[in-house]
């Protein structure tokens, strides 16, 4: 079982939903933070990290003793990551997508691959809750290879909860594709609605069942609700704006541990999701 949490718009409450849902369910849960640009789940979970790995991408290295300067590598590369200049071959590792084309096409066997480090993957646990996350190094352009490493930590026998980055482009797709259900977290504002529509478009392309959580549900207008009704998308939960909730979040604390009733509400959220998954 894999439940992913996405939003389109940033700052709507993905982390709140992911961390509180995971802790409310307790054991047999695996929380994966795929927002590798700005991961925050670990702040709330405070896990004991027992495994650390450097995530790298294979990039070409050219042996100029073997290279005949034929230029086929430059020709096949769609990303301008390898270029023949005069009597040498320059590589631009930050542009390389690691497709392996240059190595495959090289007639002189002059290209090998070396690892380029892009970020860190870590895993651990907290009170029986399994946890993993990644973070790209500052200045790195590509997030997807690190996200894919976090996705590889899915445990099939557990409830896996994936916290995705904001937006609707490649990092989000990598985080939510092949999951069983997507929780779309939004707020009832024009920005929230606009970005929710984009996120719904994305999950429809990926063909994943989905539902909506409305955060700060009393600040704004009714348009998100109207949209959900028109589109027949279930509203799974509403969280009103409350200074106590905002303060709890600001200190890096969990609602399910600090405020009464919330644990039950998140367990109920999970039940609702399971009902929708069973109904297909």
């Amino acid at each position, binding site marked *: 079982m894999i439940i992913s949490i996405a939003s389109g718009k940033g700052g709507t409450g993905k982390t709140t939903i992911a961390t509180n849902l995971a802790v409310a369910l307790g054991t047999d849960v695996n929380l994966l933070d795929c927002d590798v640009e700005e991961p925050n789940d670990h702040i709330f979970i405070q896990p004991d990290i027992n495994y650390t790995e450097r995530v790298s991408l294979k990039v070409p290295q050219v042996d100029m003793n073997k290279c005949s300067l034929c230029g086929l590598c430059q020709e096949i590369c769609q990303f301008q990551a390898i270029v023949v200049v005069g009597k040498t071959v320059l590589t631009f590792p930050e542009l390389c997508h690691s497709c392996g084309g240059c190595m495959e096409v090289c007639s002189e066997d002059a290209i090998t691959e070396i690892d380029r480090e892009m970020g860190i993957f870590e895993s651990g646990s907290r009170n029986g809750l399994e946890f993993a996350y990644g973070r790209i190094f500052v200045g790195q352009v*590509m997030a997807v290879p690190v996200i894919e490493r976090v996705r590889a930590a899915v445990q099939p026998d557990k409830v896996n909860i994936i916290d995705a980055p904001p*937006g609707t482009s490649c990092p989000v797709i990598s985080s939510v594709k092949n999951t069983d259900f997507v929780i779309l977290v939004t707020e009832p504002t024009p920005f929230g609605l606009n970005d929710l529509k984009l996120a719904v478009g994305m999950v429809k392309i990926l063909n994943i069942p989905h539902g909506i959580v409305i955060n700060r549900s009393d600040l704004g207008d009714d348009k998100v609700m109207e949209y959900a009704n028109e589109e027949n998308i279930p509203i799974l939960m509403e969280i009103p704006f409350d200074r106590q909730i905002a303060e709890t979040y600001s200190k890096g604390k969990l609602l399910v541990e600090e405020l009464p009733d919330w644990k039950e509400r998140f367990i109920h959220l999970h039940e609702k999701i399971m009902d929708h998954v069973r109904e297909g």
Partner: protein
Amino acid sequence: MKELIVISGKGGTGKTSLLGAFASLAKDKVLCDADVDAADLYLILEPDIKERQDFQEGHKAIINLDKCTECGLCRELCRFHAISTEFIVDPIDCEGCGVCVYFCPEDAIDFPIKTCGELFISETRCGPMVHARLGIAEDNSGRLVTLTRKHAKELAEERGFNLILTDGPPGLACPVIASIAGATGVLIVTEPTLSGHHDMDRVVELANHFQIPAYVCVNKFDLNPKMTETIEAYAQDKGLPIMGRIPFDPIFTEAMVQKQTIIEYDGSSKAAGAVKEIWERLKSRL
């Protein structure tokens, strides 16, 4: 030419609302929305689109099944597992590397250029604006950001304006790097939460990495005044000028619902006053 980019690391800290307010306050500027993945500035400024162009970038492989002999070489070579056992290329998994196209012995794979989004040049009540829309589930957002900024610069030169105000995306990677590269300065909008602090630290590092002057302001500061102090102390320690604090105020949402900037909606409110002060300080820095 001065170019200010509003970024945050963490999403939802108020980048777009603040940039909208600056749009009401600044004179003779071009507005640019570089959050091409989830562009929202247009919702407040209601641009009148004057010019529209397709954004074309990259390619996708398509196997012509009439020519395909199912030799399987493409599946063997594809590192992105984008080709099914029925020899259909999944357009979402396809990276556009062209390795299958190059090696197919039957020349059975087409490689058309992709249209991944749209770019718009518009007029708004607050001045000219360049904005874009990346197609859903598309990649190449960094390139579209770069193109959007390039058009904004050209438009500013054309009009004889000296200033570009740009709304940046959340995060830290490709689209953010494309947004800030070569800018005059970045305003980092954060909020007084541990997450806001953590995410700000990483964008501060990013701005330093690219040697771009960074300024800081704390939005919704009164939701946790202690954390606001911690963040400001951190900024000071890093030598980042603090531009001000904005109180939490539902009028930001109310203004958004009315499709107005908060200066237009209630210019005499405390929140609007705080934003005006921040703008004055920024102006003198740029």
